């Protein structure tokens, strides 16, 4: 048995019920005499057929119109006519009364009822050609609408891809057509990108944990999924969340979207790149403070970061390779997000269970990262509140920048924290302060201005002399000059700046001014 009552007609078809409601059909005074429970069956085509063996001419889904002229008088043929229609999976039969039958023949009615085939009689028959023309043109219009929608979406998406539009732009386009949240996930159900009205997307993401963790998946309730993949491999999935139109159109949009994403990936993107973009936009939003941290919580959760009752450790790695950092996270079984920030820095946001030793595990991560090289890993103090995470990422970034100013020979721990960068960290933090800037200018004015008679190496010599704790032989050695030559340069510096370098406070003042000067340029 086919249950069709609850299933809406596909977009390209009309239902029996819809056809019976057409103005021209109503004029024929239609009466449903059998199969009233099946009126939502889709009608694919309308066909006029009088022959008793009508079934052989059909391919299913037709509404068959007949006057019954070849059926009159033979009950067996009448019954067989209905059975033949049923075997051919016709959608319905319409009998025009008057020419062969003055009233609905009981044998046909009973047979139709048994088969569950809608049987309709027209009490005021009219030319069948009018009915077929009406229905056919409507069906063709619908099919054409579907084809043009498909074509329009495909053209728009292809246009975007050929102009090198980013992933987000493609998703925005799909969301524009579907008018519902659109979500791209990887195979691990991690949300890589979203599009659609922000509040609706957030509503979906808030419940994402439950939706995504369900094995299998339910296509009902307007949740339309399309797999993304190629060359025998699946990469991810596109989901229209709560699409309100008919399923066929939603399916069409999801399929066109998925095709475009496959093309986008094949032309240069990778799933890893998509994943990174997702983490990048999240961490960038976190750091920028444009969106309050609390509002980013659903996105973080949907991106696969555990956020409930967790301790967060923000790290910033200089010259880090984001995919490599991701691989190390997976190797160690740590939960975290990795994203490239500006200026060669990469952020890693680690998430630990409350009972775990966050400091030790962050150091463990840094140690594994430093095997075979020595990238700088700057860490912020662990944060137990999500709202404090943006400040944490900024702190780690600040530490990383301060480390970048540190001389290479200075011994730093594997995981550098704020306390390890000391004065340098403080100066870095204050580098944009106008008072600090004018202080540095004032202190170093004589050397920065240059002048025709000066030695251009004086500033580096001063820097080395102060950084080595005023060690003259070490400074001479590092600058490849003799000690008498160094003395002459130090005297020149003292003369230019009007200072006594043997005085601790004056030397310290110059040291801070140099740090500030370097930080401003860095």
């Amino acid at each position, binding site marked *: 048995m086919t249950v069709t009552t609850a299933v809406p007609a596909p977009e390209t078809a009309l239902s029996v019920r819809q056809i019976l409601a057409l103005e021209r059909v109503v004029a024929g005074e239609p009466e449903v005499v059998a199969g009233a429970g099946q009126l939502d069956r889709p009608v694919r085509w309308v066909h006029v057929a009088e022959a008793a063996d009508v079934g052989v001419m059909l391919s299913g889904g037709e509404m068959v119109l007949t006057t019954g002229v070849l059926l009159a008088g033979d009950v067996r043929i009448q019954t067989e006519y209905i059975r033949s229609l049923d075997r051919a999976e016709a959608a319905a039969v319409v009998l025009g009364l008057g020419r062969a039958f003055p009233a609905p023949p009981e044998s046909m009615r009973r047979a139709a009822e048994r088969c569950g085939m809608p049987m309709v009689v027209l009490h005021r028959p009219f030319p069948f050609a009018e009915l077929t023309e009406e229905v056919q043109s409507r069906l063709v219009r619908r099919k054409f609408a579907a084809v043009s929608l498909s074509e329009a979406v495909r053209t728009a998406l292809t246009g975007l891809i050929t102009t090198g539009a980013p992933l987000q732009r493609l998703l925005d386009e799909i969301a524009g057509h579907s008018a519902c949240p659109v979500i791209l996930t990887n*195979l*691990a*159900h*991690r949300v890589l990108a979203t599009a659609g009205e922000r509040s609706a997307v957030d509503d979906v993401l808030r419940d994402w944990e*439950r939706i995504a*963790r*369900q*094995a*299998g998946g339910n296509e009902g309730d307007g949740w339309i999924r399309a797999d993304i993949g190629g060359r*025998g*491999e699946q990469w991810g999935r596109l989901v229209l969340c709560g699409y309100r139109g008919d399923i066929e159109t939603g399916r069409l949009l999801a399929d066109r979207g998925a095709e475009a994403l496959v093309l986008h990936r094949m032309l240069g993107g990778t799933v890893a790149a998509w994943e990174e973009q997702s983490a990048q936009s999240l961490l960038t939003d976190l750091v920028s403070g444009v969106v309050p941290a609390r509002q980013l919580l659903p996105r973080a959760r949907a991106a*696969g970061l*555990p956020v409930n009752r967790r301790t967060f450790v923000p790290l910033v790695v200089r010259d880090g390779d984001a995919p490599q950092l991701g*691989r190390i996270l*997976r*190797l*160690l*079984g*740590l*939960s975290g997000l990795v994203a490239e920030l500006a200026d060669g820095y990469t952020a890693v946001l680690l998430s630990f*269970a409350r*009972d*775990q030793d966050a400091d*030790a*595990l962050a150091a*463990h991560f840094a140690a594994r990262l430093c095997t075979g090289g020595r990238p700088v890993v700057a860490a912020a103090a662990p944060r137990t509140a999500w709202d404090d995470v943006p400040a944490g990422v900024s702190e780690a970034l600040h530490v990383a920048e301060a480390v970048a100013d540190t001389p290479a020979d200075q011994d730093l721990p594997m995981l550098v924290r704020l306390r390890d960068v000391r004065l340098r960290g403080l100066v870095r933090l204050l580098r944009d302060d106008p008072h600090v800037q004018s202080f540095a200018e004032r202190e170093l004015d004589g050397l920065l201005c240059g002048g025709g008679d000066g030695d251009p190496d004086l500033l580096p010599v001063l820097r080395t002399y102060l950084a080595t704790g005023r060690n003259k032989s070490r400074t001479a050695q590092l600058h490849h000059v003799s000690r008498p030559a160094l003395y002459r340069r130090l005297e020149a510096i003292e003369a230019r700046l009007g200072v006594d370098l043997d005085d601790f406070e004056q030397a310290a003042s110059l040291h801070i001014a140099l740090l500030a000067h370097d930080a401003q340029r860095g």
Partner: protein
Amino acid sequence: MSRVVRAAVFQTAWTGDKESMIQVHEQAARDAAAQGAQVLCFQELFYGPYFCQVQDKAFYEYAEQIPDGPIVKRFQALAKELGIVLILPMYEEEQPGVLYNTAAVIDADGSYLGKYRKTHIPQVEGFWEKFYFRPGHSDWPVFDTAAGKIGVYICYDRHFPEGWRALGLAGAEIVFNPSATSRGLSAYLWQLEQPAAAVANEYFVGAINRVGVEELGDNDFYGTSYFVDPEAQFVGEVASDKDTELVVRDLDMAKLREVRDRWQFYRDRAPGAYTPLTAP
């Protein structure tokens, strides 16, 4: 306060030799322990390639005595040092010519608790296991470990619901399913069968699959190891399909009781009606 078991599984690619493969797994145990994991299960035949892609008796050499062979001894010491329960899926030689696909279970104090021998042995393209293993008859052991009651059901076993049930009846809270399974027709079953078993038997399942293509054949092992709870919900994310990955998850045993109180499958099963299932 409910009991939460921090459990781990580890998926990795064949390194090219047995010793480095063992070292990779030792490091994984250390990494898991550093995170506070109480139990860790490795992939099927963990220290070797998946040699069942070919039929070559040279690979019989990978078999070891359990528990008297060197690998079990080595990991017993490691389990004791780290205080972690280890499940070691290995190639076992009971005596020359009598070989099994086995998992040894080591408790957190380093003591050897016993073994499970794979019951169902496939013999199909790319998985020529009958060449290497006798079927085991282990009577569905469940091991009372420091991390809870643990069962093991190896790879192809997972297609047979009866063993899952037997482990549930024996009291398993977590069943590990170490595997070596490749892309192709059955990939879609990987996230279907174990979750279904977890629901039917109302316990946690940890599924492990190796990654990569090895030199012995074209099997493309797709990883995606995971834990699934008694409601068939994945616990955290499913692992990568290409990279080495340690999966550490907190399994809340309150969920097991909650689901069993709600869905009374153990009460309502009808063993008296199942006689035909055990007819030879």
